[in-house]
């Protein structure tokens, strides 16, 4: 691979190439043209007179568009090159590529320009796990187009490649024999279209990219405008909105409406948890994402018992995939339901969305879905019969072991490092369940007009809160256990999960100050953010994915929780730390960074295998802005109660959309956060 990778995308179609624009994928390497979780091109190599090219420069013009300036030859001596090759590529239902060759000499040149093309039609899961294909390949030349095909029984996928200039097409690629006059130019347009073997539409590339550019401009202009004394925040804000636009994803059932996918490149699909959290973060800025997320998840809500998919009636899905292994039921992602938090969070989002937008129609449309979700909490999620949500996979081969956001194998442990058995009842799930019941009670009273259901939900919530504060409270540490194990015993390590408890409101006021003190203690707070697991626990590791790393998304919800209980300074410190980290990453926060003390590394250390941009990291600065400005809908008004870090100075957020139509929010940074962040 020559140089760094370039990736562009639109929806769930994306291209990952080298810095020349070439694709030479190995079996388990994530380069190529991907669409609907399938690789449609694994080879796309340009040569001129049999020679590879060298990149002079590469520009990511937009998230869906890149331009490569190339010269022939692979050596370092290209100063004498008399030819430039420009490839400009846009992603659509595949991609569109404009190839231009400029002759700078005062002699005509005759060239053999060739593009080698091939596809292995790998499922993303096969790329990750390097699995073997079971079907057969067929390559055809049809009406001057190169058609790469794959078939396994009735499953057919094809890649159509066509050129605007006549080409000699053979089964391994397209070749152009051209003569370019002195100081002249030759160009062709190439379309690569991903197809399921039925109708293949060769989209008009020019129209598509104009639409996309216009779409991005409109998206940016419709979001609230931000002005700030601390310039990096303006850059961070713009980056977040642009990345969020790139992460938009349309389902097959709702074309033209988008919801946030989870991340690039592996996670361009609906995830219950990620799409909900990101929609919550983005609510004050782009509320329509939440509406699409809610509708899409309701469409796919579980209705039956299916052990392979960990599906139950009322359960909200975890992950949807479209590739070959899902099609043949060799993977359960059609969709897979193994998540214990998305169901209560679905109800939380529905209520929060209505509080911001006043869209009671959606709340009425989704009444049945919300009721089914609430029923799931009590009937299907209470695996131990103790009144708490627990999880345990019923698909031991390809299901998920940990069905909470900390989903790696070692994320939930006792202080001594031992791992609990299953089922596991992690603490934040109980918080989400409490919040779901409280919020659903409001919806039942105000929108569904069902007083008795509202009363019942409120009673259940109060009882859950009482029991939880008794059963999860670790007396000798004065914090909440991360989980109850399968014997009802406390899993007693100190974790960031206690911050989510503040967000949900399940924490009794008398315990809140102690919880906040733990969150900001040197064991949990690094100076950049709250670590997933506290220093001093047996499994603590500053670069452990869920055992010590700092997650921006996690911190944004912790800050929201701190504000909820009135800890203004602490919330401002979390915002300051994460936003200063975002400044270091040029506005694009990674999924996670190391939990090292800030004074040790000076810069946040990016977690090695994290994907980027990732939706809920992209949403984190947005939620931190909301919490720092203290934006809270109250009936038809937007309350503003700023608690901003001093460094931010004057901050304006203009035209915040909501049931009040548009409102401006202003604040001035007055909180000195140094006593927390100087660590």
């Amino acid at each position, binding site marked *: 691979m020559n140089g760094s990778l370039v990736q562009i995308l639109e929806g769930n179609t994306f291209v990952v190439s080298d810095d020349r624009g070439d694709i030479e994928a190995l079996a388990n390497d994530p380069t190529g043209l991907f669409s609907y979780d399938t690789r449609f091109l694994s080879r796309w190599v340009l040569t001129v007179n049999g020679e590879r090219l060298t990149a002079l420069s590469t520009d990511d013009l937009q998230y869906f568009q890149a331009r490569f300036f190339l010269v022939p030859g692979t050596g370092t001596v290209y100063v004498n090159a008399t030819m430039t090759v420009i490839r400009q590529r846009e992603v659509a239902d595949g991609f569109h590529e404009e190839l231009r060759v400029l002759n700078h000499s005062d002699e005509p040149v005759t060239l053999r320009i060739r593009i080698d093309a091939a596809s292995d039609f790998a499922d993303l899961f096969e790329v990750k796990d390097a699995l073997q294909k079971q079907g057969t390949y067929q390559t055809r030349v049809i009406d001057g187009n190169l058609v790469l095909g794959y078939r396994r*029984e*009735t*499953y*057919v996928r094809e890649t159509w490649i066509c050129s605007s200039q006549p080409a000699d097409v053979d089964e391994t690629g397209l070749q152009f024999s051209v003569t370019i006059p002195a100081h002249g130019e030759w160009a062709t347009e190439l379309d690569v279209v991903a197809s*399921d*073997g*039925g109708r293949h539409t060769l989209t008009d590339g020019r129209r598509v990219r104009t639409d996309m550019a216009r779409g991005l401009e409109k998206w940016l202009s419709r979001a609230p405008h931000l002005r700030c004394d601390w310039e990096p925040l303006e850059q961070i804000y713009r980056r977040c909105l642009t990345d969020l636009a790139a992460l938009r994803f349309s389902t*097959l*059932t*709702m074309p033209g409406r988008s919801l946030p996918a989870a991340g690039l490149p592996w996670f361009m699909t609906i995830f219950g948890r990620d799409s909900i959290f990101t929609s919550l973060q983005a609510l004050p800025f782009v509320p329509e994402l939440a509406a699409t997320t809610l509708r899409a998840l309701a*469409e*796919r*809500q579980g*209705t*039956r*018992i*299916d*052990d*392979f*998919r960990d*599906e*139950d009636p009322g359960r909200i899905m975890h992950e949807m995939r*479209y*590739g070959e292994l*899902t*099609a*043949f*039921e060799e993977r359960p992602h*059609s*969709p897979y339901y193994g998540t214990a938090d998305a169901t209560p969070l679905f109800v939380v989002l529905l209520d929060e969305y209505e509080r911001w937008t006043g869209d009671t129609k959606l709340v*009425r*449309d989704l*009444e*049945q879905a919300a009721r*089914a979700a609430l029923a799931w909490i009590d009937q*299907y999620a209470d695996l131990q019969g103790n009144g708490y949500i627990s999880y*345990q*996979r*019923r698909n031991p081969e390809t299901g998920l072991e940990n069905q909470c956001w900390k989903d790696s*194998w070692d994320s939930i442990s006792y202080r001594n490092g*031992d*791992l*609990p*058995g*299953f*089922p596991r009842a992690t603490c934040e799930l109980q918080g989400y369940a409490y919040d779901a019941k409280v919020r659903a009670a409001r919806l039942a009273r105000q929108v569904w007009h069902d007083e008795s259901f509202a009363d019942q939900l409120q009673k259940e919530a109060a009882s859950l809160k009482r029991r939880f504060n008794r059963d999860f409270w670790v007396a000798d540490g004065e914090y909440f256990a991360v989980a109850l*194990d*399968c014997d009802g015993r406390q899993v007693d390590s100190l974790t960031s999960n206690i911050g989510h408890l503040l967000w949900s409101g399940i924490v009794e006021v008398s315990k809140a100050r102690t919880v906040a003190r733990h969150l900001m203690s040197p064991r949990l707070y690094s100076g950049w953010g709250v670590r997933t697991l506290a220093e001093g626990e047996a499994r603590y590791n500053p670069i452990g994915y869920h055992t010590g790393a700092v997650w921006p998304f996690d911190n944004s919800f912790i800050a929201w929780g701190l504000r909820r209980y009135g800890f203004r300074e602490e919330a401002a410190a979390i915002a300051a730390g994460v936003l200063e980290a975002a400044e270091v990453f040029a506005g694009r926060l990674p999924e996670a960074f190391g939990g090292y003390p800030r004074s040790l590394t000076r810069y946040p250390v990016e977690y090695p295998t994290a994907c980027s941009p990732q939706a809920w990291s992209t949403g984190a600065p947005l939620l931190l802005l909301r919490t720092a400005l203290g934006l809270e809908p109250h009936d038809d008004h937007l309350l503003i109660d700023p608690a901003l870090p001093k460094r931010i100075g004057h901050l304006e957020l203009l035209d915040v959309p909501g049931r009040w139509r548009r409102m401006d929010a202003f604040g001035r940074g007055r909180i000195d956060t140094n006593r927390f962040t100087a660590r």
Partner: protein
Amino acid sequence: MNDATEFGDPISTFFAELGKAGHVPTFERNSATMRFDVEDDGGRIGERWHVTVRGGDVAISRRNASADAVVRIPRPYLEALVTGRINATAAYLRGLLTCAGSTAALIMFQRCLPGPPGSTGRVAPISSAAVMAERSAA
């Protein structure tokens, strides 16, 4: 044409029960029409089922009427669908059925299909010791 009450035919039984239910809560506030064109062994359409959903109320007929979604499917696969032996979304991705028109209607409809016959919703608990032993073995 098969009689809707024909004994032992899972497809007839499924649609008969769906029609008898009259109101399906999971379809509440949804409206759509669907037609299943069922292919016989020779690939010809030998049988049709028309489903109308209006605000959660369901009506079944054998009419060859227009629909928001027209699903064409060989009989053995429809039989597998209505008995939970294959998953509708997977079948769609796999090309076992084609859906002309509204994919949303198909996605809505699959909510009333049963789960796999062997699924119980139950699993035996695993102890901490077993989890630790498995990890140290790995």
